[in-house]
């Protein structure tokens, strides 16, 4: 089981949700996030004074999948959110040791489906 975390542009959240639903990948958690990668922020202005914005608004998408769906998920995410420009974000894949469905107490693969 893997946790797939994708840092994406906030305006791509809906496209991602739709793409995942279309290929019947289940479950998605979105968090509002701020951060920087290669972009390193930019300058903004308020009342005539310039200031540096170091952290850009991003969305963090989290999806739990079984090992056989990892590649399909990655492709789906990439196709849905890629613009080809700097700032598209990153995908991290993490090993998950166990999963619990709170309502039933199911564990592992059963909790996932």
């Amino acid at each position, binding site marked *: 089981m893997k946790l797939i975390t994708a840092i994406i542009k906030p305006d791509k959240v809906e496209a991602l949700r739709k793409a995942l639903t279309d290929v019947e990948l289940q479950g998605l958690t979105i968090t509002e996030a701020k951060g920087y990668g290669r972009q390193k922020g930019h300058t903004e*202005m*308020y*009342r*005539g*004074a*310039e*200031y540096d914005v170091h952290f850009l608004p991003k969305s963090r998408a989290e999806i739990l999948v079984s090992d056989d769906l990892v590649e399909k998920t990655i492709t789906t995410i990439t196709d849905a959110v890629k613009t080809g420009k700097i700032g598209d974000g990153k995908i991290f894949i993490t090993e998950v040791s166990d999963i619990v469905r709170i309502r039933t107490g199911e564990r592992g693969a059963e909790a996932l489906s």
Partner: protein
Amino acid sequence: MKFILFLSSALLVTNVSHAAVDGEVAYIFNTFLFIFSGILVMFMALGFAMLEAGFVRKKNTSAILLKNIALYSIAGIMFYLVGYSLMYVDVGGYIGSLGGMFYNPTSDELALLDGAENVDAIVETGYSAPSDWFFQMVFCATAVSIVSGACAERIKVWPFMIFAAVMTGLIYPIFGAWTWGGGWLAEMGFSDFAGSTIVHSVGGWAALTGCLILGARKGKYSADGKVSPIAGANMPLATLGTFILWFGWFGFNGGSQLAMGSALDVLAISIVVVNTNIAAAAGVMVAIILSQLMFKKIDLTIALNGAIAGLVAITAGPDLQNHFISMIVGGIGGALTTFAIPLMDKFKIDDVVGAIPAHLVAGIWGTLAVGIFGAGSIGVQIVGILAAAVLVVPLSAIVFFILKGTVGLRMTVEDEAIGMDRAELTTEAYPEFR
């Protein structure tokens, strides 16, 4: 055809026989103007509250709202206890007397209320005295509203309220006595229709003094001179507040005609209302255009300041008989304010809402404009502008320094970090976002 001729001759006759309305009717309309305009100006207190709530960070929202309702109430009490008396009762040249303290209806007024038939004695006064008191009181409140916005997010609540009491009970009434009270500036011919200097610059000078003594909010200016802007939390509230101020300003300027008992007065009020609107509109558009040119993008907060600047600028002479000149006066007000905003940062004066550019700078300009376009003499206008500075800056400074040396003026660094709503009040503005 014959009928039309008849009609027009009838109109002609009516015109010829036109006479001024009788004294009691004039008394009613004059009094109505004071009450109605005063209510509009009272609404400006809400405008300031909303504008300031929009410009501060959310952790200081309840505190700024509290200061606003407190200052309006303090003005109401202090102007009743001493302010009105010092400003209007037996003004000798420099200050009124305390003879009007604890003001109550006169014996003539009480007699009328008791059913006496001495209507004439009352009517001769032209308007009801309480309505005049109310109209003057809301102006006094406006002056101190300007201070709360500029000094927001760091001046402690209690010291601010003490300052508000001195400002509304003493500082504003003294300058008021010099001008509208009939004192030495009025004798010289100083012309300030609704108070570009008397209300807005007086408030602006006090705000500037407060900002200088308080220092900037923590984090606004770094040691190397860099500015880190602190953005306001709520632009819808800031915009709502600005619109409310604009709305109330029709009472502020319109009511300052001080009479509505004749066609002449009603026409003059209409001209004032039109000029007020045109000047505000010009202030906004100039601020929008200039912020685009200077900063490559439009700044909403500067556009909002532009509205106030246009309004403040026209306030000294909204009775101009040329609407186009009002547009120029308001537009220049908007321009000067837009230029003054980055200048404030250059001098590290941290004015949270732009009160100094909008009220002081535009107030000075508007007062000068009366000397340029209106009936006033430019030399006398300059004397009036300087007199406001010479009176208000030292007096405010004394009060601020006394507060600083005794109860303290500014929040501690720790309190400033957690915000005034938690440090000084029990009320957070948006507790569900904890």
